C-alpha cells in the first residue's frame, strides 16, 4: 500500500509553515485533512520517528515528526534544508 499521504503529511510539517503551526495547535484536525490509516495516525501521535519508518515513511522524512516535539522545536536542523 502506498505511504504517500503519510510522507506528504511529514513533508508538509517541514516545508509548510501553516501546516506546522496548525498541527502544533491541533494535530488531530490536521491529520484529518490527509488520507491516513488508523495505524499511521497512531504512529504520528506517538511522535516517535522509529515507529513511522516501518509504515513506509522515508527514513529522513520520518524525522520531521520531531518538529512537533517541544524538545526539538527550535533545533538548528530546521534552519537548513
Amino acid at each position, binding site marked *: 500500500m502506498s505511504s504517500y499521504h503519510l510522507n506528504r503529511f511529514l513533508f508538509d510539517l517541514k516545508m509548510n509553515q501553516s501546516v506546522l503551526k496548525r498541527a502544533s495547535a491541533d494535530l488531530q484536525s490536521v491529520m484529518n485533512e490527509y488520507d491516513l490509516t488508523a495505524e499511521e495516525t497512531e504512529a504520528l501521535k506517538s511522535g516517535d520517528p522509529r515507529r513511522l*519508518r516501518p509504515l513506509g515513511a522515508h527514513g529522513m522524512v520520518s524525522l520531521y515528526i520531531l518538529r512537533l516535539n517541544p524538545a526539538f522545536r527550535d533545533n538548528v536542523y530546521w534552519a537548513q534544508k
Partner: protein
Amino acid sequence: MPLVSALAASHAPNILLEPGDEWEDFMRLHYTMAPKGVDSKPTLEQQRTLRHDAERAFAVLRSDLEAARPDVLIVVANDQFVNFFFNVIPTFFITLADEVKGQFTRHSFHYKNHKDLGRAILRAGLDEGIDFAFGEYVELQHTQTVPLYFLLPKPEIPILPVYVNTWVDPVPTPRRCYQVGQLIREVASARPERVAILATGGLSHFPGSSRIGEIDTKFDHQLLEILRVGKAPTLADYTLDQLLQAGDSEFLNWMVVLGTIGEAKASSTFYMPDFVATGWGFVSWRI
C-alpha cells in the same frame, strides 16, 4: 573548450555547522534515529579538528578551481525533498532558472544560473538518448550550499545545478550516471565557456536507514584509491548494490563527474570520517 576543473566534496550539514552548540543541537536529532551514535560522538576538540581539516581540504579544491578560471560551475547533487517529492522524482534534472537561491542557517546564497549551458546539455541529452527532466525554479539546499560556502563564497560566476536521484528508490545505475558525465564532457568541449564541475555528497553514510550512524571507511578508502590511480571508468562496472551496501548512494553524484574526467588521476584526495554519520571526502582533478 574542454572541461577546466573537476571536483567532488561531501555536503554533510555538520561540515558547515559551528563546532559546539550548533553541532550538538543538530546531532541531538540524529541520535534519536541513531542511538548508538551517542557512544562515538566527537568531543568539541574533535569537532574543531574536523572543521579545520575540512577547511584545509576545501582550500585546496578552491585553489584548483580558481586557478582554472572557470566561467561556470556545474553542481551535481541530489535533492532531499526540498524541490522534489513522491509526487514527482526526476532521475536526472537540469535547472533552467535565471537565478537560484538558498539559505543554510544564517548563510544566504544567491547565484546566477547558467541557463544556456543547461539548455545545451538538455538538448544534447535528448538527441543522444538521455532524457533529462528540467524546470525553471529550484531552491538550493545543503547538498549544494555546504560545498559552495567554501568553494564559491561570492557569486562571481554562475552555477548550474544538476540533480541526480540518489535519495528515493529506485535510483539510477553507476554506469548511467557515468554516461551523463560523458555527455556533459562532450557538451562542455563544444562550448565557448570554461566549464568546471563539482559533485557533492557522500561518502559512506546511511541517512534514513536502520544502519544510520555506520561509516564504511574501508570501502571509501578503496574508492579514493581508485580515483588516485586513474581507474575511475572501472567504477561504472560497480553494481548499485556494491555502492548501496556501503552507504555510498550519493557517490552516484560523483559518478557523473567521473564520466567527465575518464582516466585522469585525482590530484588531491582527503578523507575524514566524522565519527557519527558520514565519511567526509574531498577530491580535485587538475585538468
